[in-house]
């Protein structure tokens, strides 16, 4: 691992005492289980012609209590939609299929409405989710004037180097990075069982980004399930337990953090390409782009960019277990 390891990585290593407790919890149902999720958008083209864009297909993810799972993957691969699907906040023209269970029970519309913002919290990707017309303090405390809530907020602010005066400001008066920290604070006001953070750290300097990730790690260590969507693979590897890799609307690999120590222990060619693009592995890139939903190839969607692609790759590709992880590639062994 990199030389600039902060206390975030230590917090993962020093968890062995909590391990036993966590394993007990693991026998229970996962906090979040997503099976065969699909999301498609209905689009009205010129005239009355209607097309359906299947942007997420056959996607599986699982998060246990005490576990932090990082989701990485290509731009536009469906990471944010997955988060919105779980939270029940997809736009009206979206259709969702598959099964989502929360603590062993199906997460239906009515249920998520009750749990949203309390047991289940989302840190959204866009700071446009902040209410521009409401001061920061009341916005985070969601109107609560209780001294308890005020005290808690002070504590969180101190941790993120936001001074108390920020509570009296409006979002437009803060810098991008400060607003980002405000969004994170909002989620941390509750005692959530499931946290979904959609790119919580862009634009933050390394020290603050690490602190935010360490904070999510703590929530996991206290028993919550944490799903962090991020492009910062380096940071994810320091704090998470597992990594789920998305490409073109589906999971192509689930691997442990240790699997990322070497390219050879990874399973999918896309994950390997991502590994080689890490700054410390040379910032290398591959040609081409993720296929557009309307032009998805049959079989493997990475095939057009894959150096190992053959005729068999146009057939059905199962999601299967290989060396303790999961992969959607017929060549992985």
């Amino acid at each position: 691992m990199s030389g600039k390891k902060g206390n975030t990585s230590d917090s993962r290593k020093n968890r062995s005492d909590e391990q036993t407790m966590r394993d007990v919890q693991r026998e229970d149902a996962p906090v979040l289980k997503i099976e065969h999720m699909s999301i498609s958008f209905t689009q009205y083209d010129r005239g009355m012609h209607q097309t359906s864009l299947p942007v997420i297909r056959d996607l599986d993810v699982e998060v246990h209590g005490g576990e932090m799972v990082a989701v990485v993957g290509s731009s536009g691969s469906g990471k944010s939609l997955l988060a919105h699907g779980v939270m029940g906040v997809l736009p009206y023209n979206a259709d969702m299929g598959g099964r989502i269970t929360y603590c062993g029970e199906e997460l239906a519309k009515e249920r998520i409405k009750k749990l949203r913002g309390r047991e289940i919290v989302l840190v959204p990707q866009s700071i446009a989710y902040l209410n521009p017309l409401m001061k920061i303090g009341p916005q985070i405390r969601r109107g609560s004037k209780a001294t308890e809530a005020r005290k808690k907020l002070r504590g969180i602010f101190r941790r993120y180097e936001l001074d108390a005066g920020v509570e009296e400001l409006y979002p437009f008066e803060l810098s991008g990075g400060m607003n980002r920290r405000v969004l994170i604070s909002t989620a941390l006001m509750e005692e959530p069982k499931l946290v979904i953070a959609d790119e919580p750290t862009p634009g933050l300097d390394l020290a603050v980004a690490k602190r935010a990730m360490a904070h999510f790690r703590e929530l996991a260590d206290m028993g919550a399930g944490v799903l962090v969507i991020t492009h910062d693979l380096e940071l994810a590897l320091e704090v998470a337990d597992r990594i789920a890799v998305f490409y073109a609307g589906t999971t192509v690999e689930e691997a442990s953090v240790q699997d990322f120590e070497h390219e050879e222990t990874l399973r999918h060619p896309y994950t390997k390409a991502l590994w080689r693009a890490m700054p410390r592995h040379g910032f290398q890139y591959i040609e081409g782009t993720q296929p557009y939903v309307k032009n998805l190839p049959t079989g493997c969607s990475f095939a057009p960019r894959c150096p190992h692609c053959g005729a068999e790759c146009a057939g059905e590709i199962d999601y299967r277990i290989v060396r303790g992880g999961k992969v959607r590639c017929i060549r992985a062994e």
Partner: protein
Amino acid sequence: MKLEIKNVSYRYTSKGRQILKDFSLSMENTERVGLTAPSGYGKTTLCQLLSGYLKPNQGEILLDGRPLDSYQGYCPVQMVWQQPEFAVNPRLPLGEAIKEGDEIEERVIRGLGIEPDWFGRFPTELSGGELQRFSLARALGKRTRFLIADEISTMLDLITQSQIWHFLVEEVEKRQIGLIAVSHNPELIDRVCTRKIDLRLLDEKNR
């Protein structure tokens, strides 16, 4: 061609914090300058001043020796924002929004991996990274002479990041566009830029 910021001071409100004080910096259109400073230090404010979104309280901003605000119509200094969702009109389909740019070439559209289908959509119907690539394309119009990129790649996966920077360096070199890249990532700045500036050090020198 030179872009100069001369003895500029700036604060948002009369009682607000002095963000820039007697600040000066000059660059050529053949340079790629990397800017670093901690969160909240004023990098975005500086970018906004340089691209004419904000007016300095004191001092001046000169492009080719002429005040930046004397350029009518299309501004030759274009800024790409860290949060693309604030840089596009939410009620305008992207096919209309792209016209706010200056005759964007097909090569740029292709180089940034933009799908023709996106032009029929509204900004909220794209992912964060897709919208970021769109805003970058829109800023690369014909008359752009300087490009100010404020943390433009943190919303992209590593492979796309690497592709975009490769494309951008080639593009600005070919068209002799000066680039200012704000980033928290020192490795990125080392790879992309020809000169590095830490605002804190510069501040001390200016004082």
